[in-house]
């Protein structure tokens, strides 16, 4: 057992322990990092998400208040007249949401002179909904989520009716968010080579008189 071997043994043990420790630490910390990265996005995305969630929570708080008030009205309704008033108010709200009645309120008018296709128009409508639009019309036709905007033979059809540009979108809803959306939309559109002109104007009192005819359910059943 020469002295050289006596020295080599602890050295090998040391190197092995060093490697194991190194691997263990990297493994543990990497797992923690993966866990974090699964939950996290970059700071900008998180900031946008926080902004959206704040707004959503504010909206939900308002809706909760309105619904609680409707529930209280219905539960305290001693007479048919009070119950009918609550029912009428809800019916009117839902008719607005479904685009069954003409509406008025603040909003924006976006005008675009360009050969836009069905996908461009679907995106524009979705953008306005995201910006808080409660009622929308496109080319004089009332639009809700579910309105069919499609291309057919080089033409754009809205619920089966042919429409053409220049395109006018009217959106009623949160005036400040809609104005921001109108500005962003028109700026993006102006960068598109197809677009001859794109502009918007905010208006405190817009009217959308076009309506949708409700289709009765054929296949669906409500319990």
């Amino acid at each position: 057992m020469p002295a050289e071997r006596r020295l080599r043994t602890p050295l090998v043990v040391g190197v092995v322990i060093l490697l194991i420790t190194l691997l263990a630490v990297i493994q543990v910390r990497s797992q923690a990092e993966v866990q974090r990265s699964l939950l996290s996005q970059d700071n900008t995305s998180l900031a946008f998400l926080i902004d959206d969630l704040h707004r959503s929570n504010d909206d939900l708080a308002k809706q909760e208040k309105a619904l609680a008030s409707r529930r209280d009205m219905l539960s305290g309704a001693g007479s048919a007249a009070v119950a009918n008033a609550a029912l009428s108010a809800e019916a009117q709200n839902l008719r607005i949401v479904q685009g069954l009645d003409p509406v008025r309120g603040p909003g924006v008018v976006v005008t675009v002179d360009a050969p836009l296709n069905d996908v461009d128009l679907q995106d524009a409508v979705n953008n306005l909904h995201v910006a808080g639009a409660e009622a929308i019309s496109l080319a004089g036709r009332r639009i809700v989520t579910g309105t069919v905007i499609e291309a057919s033979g080089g033409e754009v059809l809205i619920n089966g009716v042919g429409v053409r540009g220049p395109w006018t979108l009217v959106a009623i809803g949160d005036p400040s968010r809609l104005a921001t959306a109108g500005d962003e939309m028109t700026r993006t559109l102006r960068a598109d080579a197809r677009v001859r002109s794109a502009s918007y104007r905010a208006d405190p009192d817009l009217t959308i008189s076009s309506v949708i005819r409700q289709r009765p359910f054929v296949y669906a059943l409500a319990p």
Partner: protein
Amino acid sequence: MLAAWPRLRLYPLVALLALAFGFFFAAQLRAELIPPSNRVARNEALALTVRSLETDNAAYRSRTAALQSQIGRLETDAALRSGASRQLADQVAELRAHSGLTRLHGPGETVTLGNGQSPKGGAAVSAYLVNFQDVQDVVNLLFRGGAEGIAVNGRRITPESRIVGAGTAVVIDDGPPLVPPFSVAAVGNRAAIETLLAAPASLGDLKQRQRDYQVQLGWFGAGDLVLPAADTGLEPQYAHAG
């Protein structure tokens, strides 16, 4: 025996030193791999805020859904008070059903969407991932096929629904982020929807990516699909009857 003592004392010393060096090297290596700690801390703080807001959001939605349900029952009771009340209550019930505020069931189709395979060689393309526009395209197509009600991963689409992307997640009506795979269920005419889905011109981009990147796209029918009610109120704040 006595000669072995110094050797035995040396082992723990070497092991201790190796352990210390191991931690030192690992910490050094990690310091170069991970972002600065203040950035991580800021990111964690933001993620914590998101989680807290999401918890609040879920609580609001749960209370809203409970209120909607209570209102539905009270409206049914109100219908018993007079003929006019009954007529109004029936009208409201129908409007609520068309607005997605009540559960709905019937025959229909479910479209499934999932991420494909990342291209080999680490090419920086995202075409193998399904995104909010794909979901939007499927929803639009199902409405085109005459769908009378739609839900995406259990979230009901209403006349005011908006679909946005948040990273790789899809957010519907500011609800919780939904991640792939997506399941888009539609109640309606199965035959019409299936024909439309199978048409070569439908969902052209998705079908191309299905071929190129194995993006998952499929559909199947059911005799009785159940769609949940929306967990949001539909109370216009700016638009008034006019």
